[in-house]
């Protein structure tokens, strides 16, 4: 019975995909509106059943379905793992996923590809569930690549536009670069531990010495996979481009779920990571650099979705900083709250874009507060949450990561706080420019301006509620809370925690001080943004504006795309041409043809010797005898 419940969780979205995919031409939109979100709702209900009875389900956490690949000692079963960590992810994926599916019914209503859209979305949820539930690395990898495929299909959903297709292809290829790292990491795990199942690998890893080179190699390779999937430096440039997809896709895949897969994978492998302090340092630095870097780009963007995309990269950076500092719970906590408030912000942005007739440039918005009240209020909640203002969810999760970071290194803490200040600034810049002052769009846009239907605003309100109170799941001791999430996840991280030496906890007074510093900075930033974008009017520069120095670098996104084009794409195409035209055609093929020609030439030449003249043959024979005798004398 329990096995069936577990198996059915991913089966419903798969069924939804098959029904909608096979019947995408004939199924009426009404039915799709029920099937699409309905399958996710069923999965969510099953997840709730598992959650509320989780002691029964986690007694024997591994649920075997069937043997998948087996060759000699290599045995990879199709098996699912149900433990607190995967339950948390399941709740986020099916819960937020369901809300976004409902929203999509309204958002995609007019689109001719309505059925196709929901088929892909269901397939995505199915893949994501495999990723989360897999009891070994290969099953996780199925989901890992599966979500990459769905991301590809959904970014390029409007496939008549080749720009969008380029973005989709870029996302898939950059993910594949990471996937190669994941694959090699998996192989190294197998050659080291003789298994790829989580339970066996982690059980053996416990007895390994800290800092053993092979574990460092494994963790680094897996981290390469995480860098690709979770859009960290240097493989982050696909995520801003991925905004080409429909906005619900950005909310579900490129904010709430898929991009957090790297964080989940590292939290899942926490034992391996605490054994590799060198890798932890790499993760911390990468995450911190990404957090700052992406936040600084976001300040100068004008496309509402691009700002949110860079914000996502930056927030993912925070999660990695947390992982690097050993704050696995903190990272998972931030992952959860981020899923709430970032999904909310994207859906809110979608509502704005919907109302503006496809406009995404915040310079052409303004004054939407009165026109779209529900969108405005929910967006405001999301903005406050991400900015880290108490008592909304973002404050608690970010604070937990910052606190751990402070125990780890004061310098890293200071840099991370700078990132948090930037976050507050660019988010409120977005809010002020879009919703405050006067409308700056065309008259036609103004005429059509309307609040979204309730099928879209209800999800916004649900997510706003979650973004507001989501922090309650892990209120720290400082605020007289019970840290529920920490104790819930404790069994998963227990072995890792036993290995790593916990840093000396800071006193409560220090904690209060840290919070005060961060909070004061954030409020200052919000006021600064208010002053600049509401009081004054110098935040709006048209596209062609000449900029200099740092501003030019930032608004040009550090020209990383151009750099990659120059360093990788161009040389690769050049190499391809060189290999084909020079090496292949001029060299190898000529060599082969030459060998053939030599044979033909030899045949043609020797042909003349066969004259049929007996006298000539006699002459050659005697010449030969003389030569032989001559050589005999010489020797």
């Amino acid at each position, binding site marked *: 019975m329990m096995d069936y419940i577990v198996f059915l969780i991913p089966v419903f979205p798969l069924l939804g995909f098959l029904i909608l995919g096979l019947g995408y*031409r004939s199924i009426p939109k009404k039915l799709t509106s029920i099937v699409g979100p309905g399958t996710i709702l069923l999965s969510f209900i099953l997840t709730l059943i598992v959650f509320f009875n989780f002691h029964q389900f986690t007694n024997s956490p591994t649920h075997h379905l*069937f*043997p*998948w*690949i*087996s*060759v*000699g000692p*290599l045995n990879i079963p199709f098996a699912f793992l149900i433990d607190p960590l995967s339950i948390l992810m399941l709740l986020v994926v099916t819960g937020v996923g369901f809300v976004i599916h409902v929203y999509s019914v309204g958002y995609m209503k007019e689109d001719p590809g309505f059925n196709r859209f929901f088929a892909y979305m269901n397939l995505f949820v199915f893949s994501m569930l495999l990723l989360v539930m897999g009891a070994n690395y*290969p099953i996780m*990898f*199925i989901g890992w*690549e*599966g979500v990459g*495929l769905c991301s*590809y299909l959904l970014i*390029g959903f409007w*496939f*008549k*536009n*080749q720009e969008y*297709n*380029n973005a989709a*292809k870029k996302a*898939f*290829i950059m993910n*594949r*670069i990471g*996937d*190669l790292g994941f*694959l*090699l990491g998996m*192989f*190294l795990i*197998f*050659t080291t531990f003789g298994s790829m199942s989580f339970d066996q690998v982690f059980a053996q890893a416990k007895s390994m010495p800290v800092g053993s080179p092979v574990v460092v190699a494994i963790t680094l390779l897996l981290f390469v996979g995480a860098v690709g999937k979770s859009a960290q430096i240097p493989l982050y440039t696909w995520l801003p481009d991925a905004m080409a997809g429909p906005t619900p896709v950005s909310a579900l895949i490129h904010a709430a779920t898929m991009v957090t897969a790297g964080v989940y994978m590292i939290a899942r492998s926490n034992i391996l990571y605490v054994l590799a302090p060198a890798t932890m340092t790499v993760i911390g630095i990468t995450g911190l650099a990404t957090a700052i870097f992406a936040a600084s780009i976001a300040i100068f963007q004008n496309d509402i979705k691009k700002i949110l995309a860079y914000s996502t990269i930056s927030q993912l950076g925070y999660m990695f900083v947390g992982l690097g500092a050993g704050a696995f719970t903190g990272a998972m906590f931030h992952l959860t709250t981020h899923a709430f408030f970032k999904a909310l912000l994207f859906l809110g942005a979608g509502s704005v874009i919907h109302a503006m007739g496809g406009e995404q440039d915040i310079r052409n918005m303004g004054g939407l507060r009165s026109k779209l009240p529900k969108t405005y209020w929910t967006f405001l909640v999301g903005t406050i949450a991400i900015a880290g203002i108490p008592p909304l969810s973002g404050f608690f999760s970010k604070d937990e990561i910052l606190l751990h970071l402070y125990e780890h290194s004061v310098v890293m803490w200071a840099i991370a706080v700078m990132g948090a200040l930037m976050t507050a600034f660019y988010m409120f810049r977005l809010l002020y420019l879009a919703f405050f002052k006067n409308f700056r769009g065309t008259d036609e846009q103004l005429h059509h301006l309307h609040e979204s239907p309730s099928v879209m605003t209800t999800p916004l309100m649900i997510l706003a509620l979650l973004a507001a109170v989501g922090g309650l799941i892990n209120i720290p001791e400082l605020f007289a809370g019970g840290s529920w999430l920490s104790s819930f996840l404790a069994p998963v991280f227990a072995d890792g925690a036993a290995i790593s030496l916990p840093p000396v906890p800071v006193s409560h007074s220090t904690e209060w001080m840290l919070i005060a510093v961060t909070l004061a900075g954030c409020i200052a930033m919000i006021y600064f943004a208010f002053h600049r974008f509401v009081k004054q009017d110098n935040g709006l520069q048209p596209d062609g504006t000449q900029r200099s120095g740092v501003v030019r670098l930032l608004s040009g996104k550090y020209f990383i795309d151009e750099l990659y084009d120059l360093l990788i794409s161009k040389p*690769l*195409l050049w*190499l*391809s*041409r060189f*290999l*084909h035209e020079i*090496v*292949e055609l001029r060299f*190898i*093929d000529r060599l*082969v*043809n030459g060998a*053939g020609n030599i044979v033909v030439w030899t045949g043609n030449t020797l042909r003349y010797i066969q004259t049929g003249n007996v006298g000539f043959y006699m002459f050659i024979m005697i010449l030969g005898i003389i030569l032989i005798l001559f050589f005999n004398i010489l020797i």
Partner: protein
Amino acid sequence: MLTIILILLPLALSLITLTLKSEKAVRQYVLSGSVIEFGVAVAAFIQYKTSCHCNLLFTADWLSTLGVSLKFGMDGISLLMVMLTTFLVPVIILSSFSHSYSKPAVFYSLILLMEMALVGVFTAFDGLMFYIFWELTLIPAYFICAVWGGNDRIRITFKFFIYTFVGSLFMLVALICLYFKTPLPHSFDYHWLYSAVLTPAEQAWIFAAFFLAFAIKIPIFPFHTWQPDTYTTSPAPGSMLLAGIMLKMGIYGMIRWMVPVCHNAMQLYAPFIITLAVIGIVYASVIAIRQSDMKRLVAYSSIAHVGLIAAGVFVLNPYAMQGAVIQMVSHGINIVGLFIAIDMIEKRTGSRVISELGGIATKAPRLAVVFMIMMLGSIALPLTNGFIGEFLLLLGIFEYSKVFAAIAGLTIIFSAVYMLWMYQRTMLGKTNGITEEMTDITWTETVAFIPLVIMIFWIGLSPRLFLDVALPDVMTVLDYVRL
């Protein structure tokens, strides 16, 4: 008994086809005939699975004084290859019905003759028989390409014929040398050939001769230059037979002959050969990125994919060897699917040039879906057949050398680069003058894809049936290395 039926049935069908006049009769006849042949293969498969290792042996004396006998049988590896052959031939025949080839009786007769020769190669348990059928495949292949091919077909087919023929002559020399080293009385029976006692030098020479024959056939870099031209010029069914089945003869030959006979030389020269194969993977992938002709792009991608299989054979461990066997089957299915899709595009638009196409998905959504599935199999997405093979191959290579595995693993990135590029430029985007009139594939044409799609997901989801059939014999072959 079933083994000999599998060889004789296509031969008989092929001869009878020649007597038929109307195109319709020929089509119905060859299609039903090849389906029956597949049915026989399935029966053989069931018999093999149920009555453990009867080997389906057939023996008859032929030149007994020379130790040559008509000995045919199947082990697990042969069986999979025979299944692949008999499975793909009806699909290839069915897909060819959208064209109207001149002299249909001869054309389809040659395809069936080819099937007979291929089954002969995969079932021969006698060295000389193996060689005879090996050469026999070349004759129908030559005529199919030279008579029904495209531009410049005579020169290209001639090169293909001579190049591969020279290679196989080396194999003949190797087999004869081996024959004289067998214990008395000399015999071409493959067990006798396996037991030949060789000095290291002799082994090296025989290794080199075999390698040349097989490397040209597969083809392994740098012996591949006949391949892109030949695949591109051949009529679609010809390309499918060559790429889907015929090249597997080379890999099969390596497993069947080189590993047991030259096991010391295999280990000695493996680093060198794997280096070649791995260079080939990267080299062909990089070239594929810029190809303008869809068929030629797939041809180069095939060099990369089979390079990985060849590398897997030479690392000589169970994972990679199993991966090689399963990937031979998967590669055959995927490349035939890709060639069918390309053929359908070419038939409707008159073009295979990537830059001239675009927007086909709008006009032909069904074709877009099946093309996508073939592509996903080809880029080894998990839960498709390609993943099982490449996963095992790369795992096996990783055990042998981490560096080789890392470089060979680049194929998963490159294959995404060139395949997605081709898909994007032909299927996605807006329609243009050439693709404006494109129509979707008909239901009969869709039927040719359905078995391929089923197999892609069957192998991807549950490869055990196929892995288990091959495993005992893969271990037997590898035992020759360990001893």
